[in-house]
């Protein structure tokens, strides 16, 4: 029965691939939970871990701040102009500011920041962790009495979350200023009107959802690359690109999932 054999073979391979995929998610969930618990444990924070957090924030947020700010400003200004012009064309000019703020500050900028950090720092973290495993550096650290989880990984997660939150805040503040200028021009007399519209957009549930979303993005851009890097087998250098590829695909999927869930919670 060669046809039956090949069917069994196909199903076996598919089943094994599915189990490996599910194991990856389980590993990710476990590492994410451990990272949150460790981050909330005061004993995690000592001189060494604080310095890794500082370095992570420097490389993830501070180093890219000028370029990222410029990019966010240009993109925000273009999108605000499109929204304002389109709203005017349809006679909805009074809603232009609210639409701009909703689109940019609540949706596009947090996602864009997470993608930016994920592609830049997430890929680097994934590669570094995979190389650490391949070259046995984790075991070497353990031998010297340094816990790699607390020294190498948790500070990266903390630094990554802080970086995503900080960059999103900078980009959002800039977008609000640009939206004001695009709608009202260079004058201060419309500030009360602007404040009223922004206050309507940022009601407590919207703020809570935005915080939760940005926090989830921050966790995703570090937890997923680290978790995938940790899954690399020791002494198998060829596996590093595969690990990064898997990490980036999983990261993209999770970022989109978080965005879709936040949209569903807000608008459905």
């Amino acid at each position, binding site marked *: 029965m060669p046809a039956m054999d090949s069917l069994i073979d196909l199903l076996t391979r598919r089943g094994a691939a599915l189990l490996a995929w599910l194991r990856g998610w389980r590993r990710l969930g476990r590492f994410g939970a451990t990272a949150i618990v460790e981050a909330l444990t005061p004993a995690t924070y000592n001189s060494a871990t604080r310095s890794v957090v500082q370095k992570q924030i420097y490389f993830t947020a501070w180093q890219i701040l000028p370029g990222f700010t410029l990019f966010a400003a240009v993109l925000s200004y273009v999108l605000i102009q499109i929204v304002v012009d389109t709203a005017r064309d349809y006679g909805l000019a009074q809603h232009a500011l609210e639409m701009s703020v909703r689109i940019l500050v609540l949706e596009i900028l947090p996602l864009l920041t997470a993608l930016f950090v994920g592609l830049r720092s997430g890929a680097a973290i994934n590669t570094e962790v995979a190389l650490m495993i391949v070259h046995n550096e984790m075991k070497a650290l353990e031998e*010297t*009495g340094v816990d790699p989880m607390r020294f190498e990984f948790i500070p990266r997660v903390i630094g990554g979350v802080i970086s995503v939150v900080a960059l999103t805040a900078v980009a959002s503040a800039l977008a609000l200023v640009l939206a004001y200028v695009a709608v009202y021009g260079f004058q201060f007399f419309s500030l009360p009107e602007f404040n009223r519209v922004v206050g309507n957009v940022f009601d407590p549930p919207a703020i809570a959802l935005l915080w939760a979303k940005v926090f989830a993005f921050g966790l995703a851009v570090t937890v997923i690359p680290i978790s995938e890097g940790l899954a690399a087998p020791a002494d198998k250098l060829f596996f590093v690109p595969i690990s990064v590829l898997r990490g980036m695909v999983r990261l993209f999927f999770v970022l989109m999932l978080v965005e879709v869930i936040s949209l569903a919670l807000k608008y459905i």
Partner: protein
Amino acid sequence: MADDAARRTAIAAAHDADISLISDELPLRANLSVLENIAIVPQYRENLAYEVAADQAWALLVRLGRTDCAFKRDPDLTSEERFVAKLLRAVIRAPSIIIIDRPALLLPDCHYPPRVQATLDALDDKINECWIVDYPWNEPLYAPR
């Protein structure tokens, strides 16, 4: 002196928290300099400020006359510099026993027994006990005991 099975048994004890193992299979942290690799141990374990931990690491490098490699990273090190960095990373922790696993792998380009001994002598007051695990066929290389 030990065959491979005996060697593995001997170094298995190194997983004890109070024993430090120096081995070709336990590399330095690649993104840290030699100084940082040594300093990170007291900085993490004793919660010392980096400057204090780095001073301790620097003092050990001075003692061995190896400050020239303090700011190099692993790929830029000679095998001798790498050995010194690994040894000092173990010494700064002040374990009760230091095990050097197959020094020939750590110092492949020199007559290593006298070199290892000279380095250990320079750190005599910092090392409580040191075991060198090597193969029986390398026994003639060591000074008679």
